[in-house]
């Protein structure tokens, strides 16, 4: 395969991931093209790119999922490649094919691989055929078949969208009486998100942990892994905190899992960057699915390995061989990511719509912030409520946890509720501190969290309100004090 070099890349996404890809391109002197919906014309990714094109109305279906408009924007801009980010069209085989037909390189796996990985039931069968363990479950079933299979599998069990991914359409069913309602919701979400309402069932494993492996493959089929990420802190099957290495893995188990991930990638003929997800339960691991895209949590891997995953994506999509060999990949220290989303953690993490008022972001040694967050940002119901990701690196896990705690205390977002209080609580929790936690951590622990004494909270709230009138603004205009004036005079004389 010939190596081409990209001159101009269109980013078919928005928010923090669009900025992340724009930065990777800019670092390589590759021009960037943004697309935007009517809700996003002033967004940061639009301002950061060299060019920007409107692709439709605020609803994702009209804009960021509008494949024709995006391909047309790429043609008008003279782009030679398209990076899909995550979500939206990232795993859409028809979009990848449309890009290639229009002479654009798709920075991701081939349309065939996307179609295969998008069909979870078929991927499971293919990977199981390569000798990799999969959890007990069914193929796609109708409601009557689901009721029969549920009786055989036992409760609790999971309903998953056959065409799914990204945690959409997944429902945990505790009791037989909840099955019909959960099937209805899962099919509704699957239909809405993927245009396909097929679902399958999977047995719920004992205290499962969610551990995934980052892999990258080049056009010649060489595959390397970049180590694992532990992602067991979740709510509604959406990750909240990710870390690498996983505190659950010992040497031999890690080696077997990393090998299985590379074997799974080979079994589906994978190209570009992807993630192989596993469930880990009592030292046994089971293949879940391949996320055929860049993951939200990729910075965790970047901080421990020093590898720029997006740069690798650009390189292998251009036909270059993998610039790193497996034995050159080394994981150093520990990294943790906390997702800062506009959600009401006091009310079941419901997504919030509103206007961001003030923003202070953290810094310091080992701290990275990937965000698209600015004062005045309007959060609409059309898109994901993710505002920013804070990633902390430390030479040890405790150091990374401490740095993250400090970073979260520096982070101030007002106007909308965010997940920051939750993260501070989680990082201090004994189960998280010890590393011994599983996927139901939030469900079981957050619900029974300790409250401050009511009278003390009321006292604090009243004292704050009383001080409110005289409290200086967050960033007050600095009237020069006589000290500052004297210091400045000393400085110039």
């Amino acid at each position, binding site marked *: 395969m010939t190596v081409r070099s990209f001159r101009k890349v269109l980013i078919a996404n928005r928010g923090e991931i669009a900025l992340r890809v724009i930065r990777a391109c800019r670092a390589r002197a590759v021009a960037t093209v943004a697309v935007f919906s009517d809700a996003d014309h002033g967004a940061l990714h639009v301002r950061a790119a060299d060019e920007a094109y409107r692709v439709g109305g605020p609803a994702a279906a009209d804009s960021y999922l509008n494949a024709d408009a995006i391909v047309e924007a790429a043609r008008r801009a003279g782009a030679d490649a398209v990076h899909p980010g995550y979500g939206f069209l990232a795993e859409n085989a028809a979009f990848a094919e449309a890009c290639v037909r229009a002479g654009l390189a798709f920075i991701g796996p081939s349309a065939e691989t996307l179609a295969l990985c998008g069909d979870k039931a078929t991927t499971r069968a293919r990977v199981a055929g390569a000798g990799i363990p999969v959890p007990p479950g069914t193929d796609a079933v109708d409601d009557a078949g689901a009721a029969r299979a549920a009786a055989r599998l036992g409760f609790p069990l999971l309903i998953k969208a056959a065409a799914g991914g990204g945690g959409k359409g997944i429902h945990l069913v505790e009791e037989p009486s909840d099955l019909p309602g959960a099937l209805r919701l899962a099919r509704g979400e699957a239909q809405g998100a993927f245009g396909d309402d097929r679902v399958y069932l999977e047995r719920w494993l004992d205290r499962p942990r969610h551990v995934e492996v980052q892999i990258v493959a080049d056009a010649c089929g060489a595959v390397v892994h970049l180590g694992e990420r532990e992602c067991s802190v979740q709510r509604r099957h959406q990750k909240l905190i990710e870390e690498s290495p996983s505190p659950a893995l010992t040497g031999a188990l890690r080696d077997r899992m990393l090998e299985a991930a590379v074997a799974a990638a080979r079994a589906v003929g994978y190209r570009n960057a992807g993630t192989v997800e596993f469930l880990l339960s009592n030292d046994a691991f089971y293949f879940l699915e391949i996320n055929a895209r860049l993951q939200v949590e990729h910075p965790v891997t970047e901080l421990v390995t020093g590898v720029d995953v997006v740069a690798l994506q650009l390189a292998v999509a251009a036909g270059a061989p993998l610039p790193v060999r497996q034995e050159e990949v080394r994981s150093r220290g520990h990294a943790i990511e906390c997702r800062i989303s506009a959600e009401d953690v*006091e009310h079941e993490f419901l997504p*919030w719509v509103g206007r961001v008022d003030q923003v202070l972001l953290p810094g310091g040694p080992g701290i990275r912030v990937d965000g698209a967050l600015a004062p005045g940002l309007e959060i609409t119901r059309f898109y994901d409520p993710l505002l920013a990701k804070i990633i902390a690196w430390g030479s040890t896990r405790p150091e990374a946890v401490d740095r993250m705690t400090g970073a979260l205390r520096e982070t101030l977002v007002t106007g909308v509720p965010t997940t920051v209080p939750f993260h501070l609580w989680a990082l201090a929790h004994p189960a998280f501190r010890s590393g011994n936690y599983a996927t139901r951590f939030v469900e079981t622990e957050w619900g029974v969290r300790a409250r401050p004494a009511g009278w003390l*909270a009321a*006292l*604090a*709230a009243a004292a*704050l309100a009383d001080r409110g009138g005289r409290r200086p603004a967050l960033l007050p205009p600095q009237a020069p004090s006589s000290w500052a004036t004297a210091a400045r005079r000393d400085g110039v004389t």
Partner: protein
Amino acid sequence: MKTYWVRAGDEDFEVGVEEGAGTLAVSVGGARHMVELAEVVPGWYTLLVDGKTHDLGVWDHAGTRTLMLDGRPCPVEVRRTRPPSGPGHSGRGHRRGGVVAPMPGLLVALHVAEGAQVGMGQPLVIMEAMKMQMEVRAPHDGVIRRVHVAPGQELTAGQLLVTIE
């Protein structure tokens, strides 16, 4: 002395505040406390209550606040006037007989009609925001007196969905 009505978590308090020299005298639950408050870094305070220090984080959003007191989060609402009696003055949750939208979003489906008999926990509507669907269920047994919304409608948080009697 100023009076504040505070809802902290699920509890309601009447709090009296008197200002002294750098110190506040705060009366709550029949006890009087000497209080000092100092902002250490933006959003984080040291709260001194009767000589004991507490770590206090504050986040403001849409009329309410979240506090974190010694690592323990707690939502609070403060009013200068006596709130109407009874729980739920926050506007979230369910008013008597009325079921409200728990989040802003799109009404995807309506499962009940006026006059229908419903049991506690029965799904009433499905809402969607940010690609997440969620069922709103009946808080108690009853009869649907009014349906205030229709499928396809954009809803705000706290908007009345149905009235159950």
